[in-house]
């Protein structure tokens, strides 16, 4: 009898722990790794913030190759993790394949749209945030030439470039915007040497503020800009601290908020579109002690005004991804 009770107790405990695991949300990072000081780290930050505030726990996984994507989602789904959040546009294809197989679970994908009844697609209005830093760039520039260095040449990065160019031209209609992409393969996200060369090339063409939306390649851009005494602009996370006095500002993409919100919603996560823009704090520009001296009150006022106009819908920034063209920039 006692033995049976023990077994029963053990299986009950097992069931309980399984139940606890069932409620745990999960996050899967993209190839950059969760400490990339940028996109993935922001996602990790959001998950950690949720865990600290609620005392909950979450499952996580960093993939090391493209081949692991589908397997990673499936594993968490089999474990009953809910919701499962994945950071990065490359997750769209595997998620579209896996999501219909687990109709009871909720998925959230950041930076891409997957059309399924149990998937929340979080997209950011990067063009709006880029517009603001473009304004700051044009105002900080002495010669009226500003530069943009993208990572891999994909529509998402062109969206950054296009918003940036629109912002710069809004402040100074005579401004010249030089835009370069690092490459066409994923290696373009981790080539700081080429990032440096592109920076030098843009400086010799007259650029004195350079915006890097290029992952690890951006490290080279920010470094060279600091060495050459020109301004740079960081991306995704707040990168102002990397070279105080040289990094003008950072275009913040609040991936952390997206993950935090998804984790907070838990199993009640609402499927469909979730657009994070200026109006709901999804994007913005970074202002902290490292760049306080670089951003004058005048610049701040102009940007705040534009920000309010964009949030209210009065000012519309063209989104490259809506029609794959940019009215002010030729790729």
């Amino acid at each position, binding site marked *: 009898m006692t033995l049976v009770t023990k077994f029963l107790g053990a299986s009950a405990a097992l069931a309980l722990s399984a139940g606890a695991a069932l409620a745990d949300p999960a996050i899967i990072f993209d190839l950059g790794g*969760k*400490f990339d000081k940028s996109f993935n780290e922001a996602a990790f930050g959001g998950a950690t913030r949720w865990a600290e505030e609620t005392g909950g726990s979450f499952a996580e996984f960093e993939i090391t190759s493209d081949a692991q994507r589908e397997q990673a989602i499936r594993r968490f789904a089999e474990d009953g993790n809910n919701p499962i959040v994945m950071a990065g546009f490359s997750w769209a294809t595997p998620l579209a394949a896996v999501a219909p197989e687990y109709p009871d679970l909720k998925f959230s994908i950041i930076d891409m749209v997957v059309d399924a009844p149990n998937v929340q697609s979080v997209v950011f209005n990067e063009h709006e945030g880029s517009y603001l830093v473009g304004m700051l760039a044009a105002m900080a520039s002495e010669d009226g030439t500003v530069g943009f260095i993208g990572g891999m040449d994909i529509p998402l990065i062109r969206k950054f470039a296009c918003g940036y160019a629109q912002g710069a031209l809004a402040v100074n209609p005579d401004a010249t915007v030089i835009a370069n992409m690092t490459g066409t393969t994923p*290696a373009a996200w981790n080539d700081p040497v*080429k990032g440096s060369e592109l920076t030098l*090339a843009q*400086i010799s063409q007259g650029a004195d503020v350079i915006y890097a939306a290029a992952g*690890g390649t951006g*490290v080279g851009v920010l470094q060279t800009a600091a*060495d050459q005494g020109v301004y740079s602009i960081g991306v995704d996370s707040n990168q102002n601290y990397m070279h105080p006095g040289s990094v003008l500002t950072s275009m913040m993409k609040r991936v952390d908020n997206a993950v935090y919100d998804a984790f907070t919603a838990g199993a009640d996560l609402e499927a469909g579109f979730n657009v994070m823009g200026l109006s709901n704090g999804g994007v913005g520009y970074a202002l902290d002690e490292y760049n306080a001296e670089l951003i004058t009150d005048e610049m701040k006022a102009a940007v705040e005004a534009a920000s309010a106009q964009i949030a209210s819908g009065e000012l519309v920034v063209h989104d490259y991804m809506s029609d794959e063209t940019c009215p002010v920039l030729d790729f």
Partner: protein
Amino acid sequence: MDLLAFFDIAVLDGTVRLGVPLLLACLAGLFSERAGIFDIGLEGKMLISAFLAAGVSFTTGSVWLGLIAGIMASVVLSLLHGLASITFRGNQLISGVAINFFASGITVVAAQAWFGEGGRTPSLSGAARFESIQFPGALTRIRDIAKADLPMKVYSELLSGHTIIVYLCILIVPFVWWTLYRTRFGLRLRAVGENPGAVDTAGISVYRMRYSAVIICGVLCGLAGAYLSTGLQAGFVREMTAGRGYIALAALIFAKWRPWQALGATMLFGYLQALAIRPDILERAIGIRVQTQVLDALPYVLTVIVLAGFVGKAIPPRAGGEAYVKER
């Protein structure tokens, strides 16, 4: 049309910066392959050297210690390649691939454990990186240089402002040529790559010659990697070699395994890379807009053309890729 635009000083300056790591890696491959050891692990050796050079430079504050550490790491991987392919007669290509994978993984894991910055080393500054050497009176900022007149541009940008590794590199090519073609060691090295049996008959150890070659290969790869992370950049970033080891291999074939031609090939490939980041200059030079991807692909296209036999014949060392088995 303005063909002179092709000789823009900024592009030529970029050629030197981008060509030097290719040249060092190409010469590394030259030594190894001339001795009959194919080495596609150049990429991995550069990567591990780039990582350790940056890591040790940051920790000790001395870039020279970093350079030594980087070279040591690269030599260790070279010896591993030697052990697998010379002593144990394994497949040289597989061993090379293994080295690339190993370096790609271990650098990120070790950097994360060491610095906790996501597979990256902290930014180097001061004595922890190779500062560029400024000639007297040379302008240092690109913005000032862009406004200067031509002789000043050549002096300030092309001649001045490189790191010591670049200036050393100028001496390396004649030295390699002299070693390979004018010394007994060079003759024997080339011979083990063509006909190891004959070398063995002459009473010279094939193993020792081949091990010497892979060690030299490791030193040069180490120099190339350290230059990337402590000369061109101020820190290590995962996968920062970004395929330069493979382009160096392509250059080696393009140069038909000869040192002066290796200089030409790597500088040509460096020039194409430097031109690819200045689409405006290319447009000025030929009058039409060319996609930069075309230029990025050109090194490989040129190599295929050479391999296909359109420009002379690229004949690899005859005993290349084969382990030497002493007759018993």
